[in-house]
């Protein structure tokens, strides 16, 4: 039987010579993503908001900080599309600039907490032993404190402002990211290709960056986009409570807070920024959800 087989080096008949059709991985991801309408909508929302933030200076019709006490609490008009607030500032322009504040804080807080949390979680899982014990106990300690309390504490001690809020939110997001990464990495570590990588002479750093990280990234990315929504919401909450973004910097949360006193006379002043917070969080969550399904290697072919 073995003699009948052709010599090596040439393709052999039978199941082995079967070549599955060539697919580009990126195209597949795009296809799965686009097919889910809701995630596409989420992505479009996110992109629009990002464009709004980047080109805020061109899109806004007024200076968001300029007060005009002769035109306070005005209703929508051609001059002020969404009316003005109690200090006569253009609500529309403040919302556009508010997107910039929200996204800046969101992106910086999520990426820094993501990098730190992932590095911690991955090291804990990969090295195990006392490294694991120390890192995870720190994480446990952080998790034991309610996130809002930590943020309130930091903001209360140092005062508001974009930098402080960003730091506080990033700090609060480290522990969950670290835990999630650790769980993922522990699971991935069991795989044969990790042993195969070791047998190939891969060092620890290379192993983590090349083997573990790409496999853990899909769920982490979803976690991060969802965290993005949460951070935006937390920033709004802090600003609403008055310990976040310091006035006069436009922030959606602060705008809701300022507007609620005038909810009966000028409802747009607080409802529109509130709606924007909602839409942004929704956009991030939906886009993240779709992204997970599209790039998760284990769901390949299932969708």
């Amino acid at each position, binding site marked *: *039987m073995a003699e009948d*087989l052709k010599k090596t080096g040439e393709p052999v008949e039978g*199941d082995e010579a079967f070549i599955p059709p*060539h697919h580009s991985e990126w195209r597949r991801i795009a296809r799965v993503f686009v097919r889910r309408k809701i995630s596409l909508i989420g992505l479009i929302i996110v992109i629009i908001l990002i464009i709004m933030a980047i080109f805020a200076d061109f899109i806004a019709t007024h200076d968001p900080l300029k007060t005009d006490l002769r035109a306070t609490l005005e209703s929508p008009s051609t001059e002020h599309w969404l009316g003005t607030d109690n200090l006569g500032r253009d609500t529309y322009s403040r919302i556009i600039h508010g997107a910039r504040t929200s996204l800046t804080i969101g992106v910086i807080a999520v990426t820094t907490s993501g990098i730190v949390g992932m590095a911690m979680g991955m090291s804990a899982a990969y090295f195990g032993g006392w490294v694991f014990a120390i890192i995870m106990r720190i994480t446990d300690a952080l998790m034991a404190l309610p996130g809002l309390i930590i943020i309130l504490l930091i903001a209360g001690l140092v005062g508001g402002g974009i930098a402080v809020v960003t730091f506080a939110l990033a700090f609060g997001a480290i522990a969950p990211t670290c835990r999630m990464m650790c769980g993922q990495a522990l699971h991935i570590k069991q795989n*044969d290709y990790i042993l195969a990588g070791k047998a190939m002479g891969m060092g620890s750093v*290379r192993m983590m960056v090349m083997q573990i990280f790409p496999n853990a990234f899909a769920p982490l990315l979803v976690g991060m986009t969802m965290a993005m929504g949460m951070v935006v919401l937390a920033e709004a909450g802090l600003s609403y409570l008055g310990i976040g973004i310091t006035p006069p910097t436009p922030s959606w949360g602060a705008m809701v807070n300022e507007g609620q006193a005038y909810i009966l006379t000028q409802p747009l002043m607080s409802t529109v920024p509130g709606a924007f917070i909602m839409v942004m969080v929704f956009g991030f969550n939906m886009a993240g959800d779709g992204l997970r399904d599209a790039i998760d290697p284990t769901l*390949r072919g299932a969708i």
Partner: protein
Amino acid sequence: MAPVLEIQNLTTNFYTEYGTVKAVDGVSYYVDEGEIIGLVGESGCGKSVSVLSAMQLIQTPGRIDSGRVLFKGEDILKYDSKGEKMSAIRGGKIAMIFQEPMTSLNPVLSICRQLTEALEIHLDMDIQSARDRAIELLHMVGLPEAARRIDDFPHQFSGGMRQRVMIAMALSCNPSVIIADEPTTAVDVTTQAQLLELMNDLVTRLHTSLIIVTHNLGVVARYVQRIYVMYAGRIVESGPAEEIFENPRHPYTIGLMRSVPRLGEKRGSRKLIPIDGMPPDLIFMPPTCAFLPRCTYKIERCREEPWPALRQVGEKHYTACFVDIGEKE
């Protein structure tokens, strides 16, 4: 000629909460340059643990308690398991092929990325030349349309093709020894034969030594020059392949050969006879020969004396049995 890789008196134990598992108990074997040897035994007899020990890839609770692993005369067990010297050996000098082609490749990295990895680690190649070399390697292992398939992901390949990729990865840095741990167990029979033929071909051409770890004596019979039969963590018989097949001297080897068909054998020419019983619990090992409860040749002496040491019964042929099993069993 000195052996390329020699394992001497290797003992690896696993310290579990139920007791100490003596997975490998004083095992010695060697492979010469360009030689193909087979390490045969049933599941859990310690064959995989012995090769993983040689590479220092044993995880806690396992520990290598004694023995030497000489690679070109140098004891590589003395190297720090996480150190640079050991990393240079792994993949660079001694490469491994694993059992499960489905899970031994990283699902999220392209074949190219995984193949060039070793080249970058050991040979310091730049991206372009590593890629060229990867394509060349895939050609060598008979992957059709290598240049076009190289950027594909593992899930786009069949099991046999993935195992070919694994072989290409093992060969990539021109190692002196390749250890194939059950390389064909997870693929179907026709593919098994093709893969073995391929490996045989390549190592002969490249003058690489090959250690095939398998539970299937019949599969490797055509390719190996010498065979080591392992049982319960020890070598029970060793010798040239032909000698072992024609004149097995240990009851376990005889049992193994009766229980598996051989490639090229006529169908139905003989009845396959299983070995009765179960392998012993490696925590509570009997003081006597571990094969005793399953042995059909046992004599009174077997019950009274400890496990016999290997004794010479022919040129390069050793067995760990008191009984002189005749020329024809």
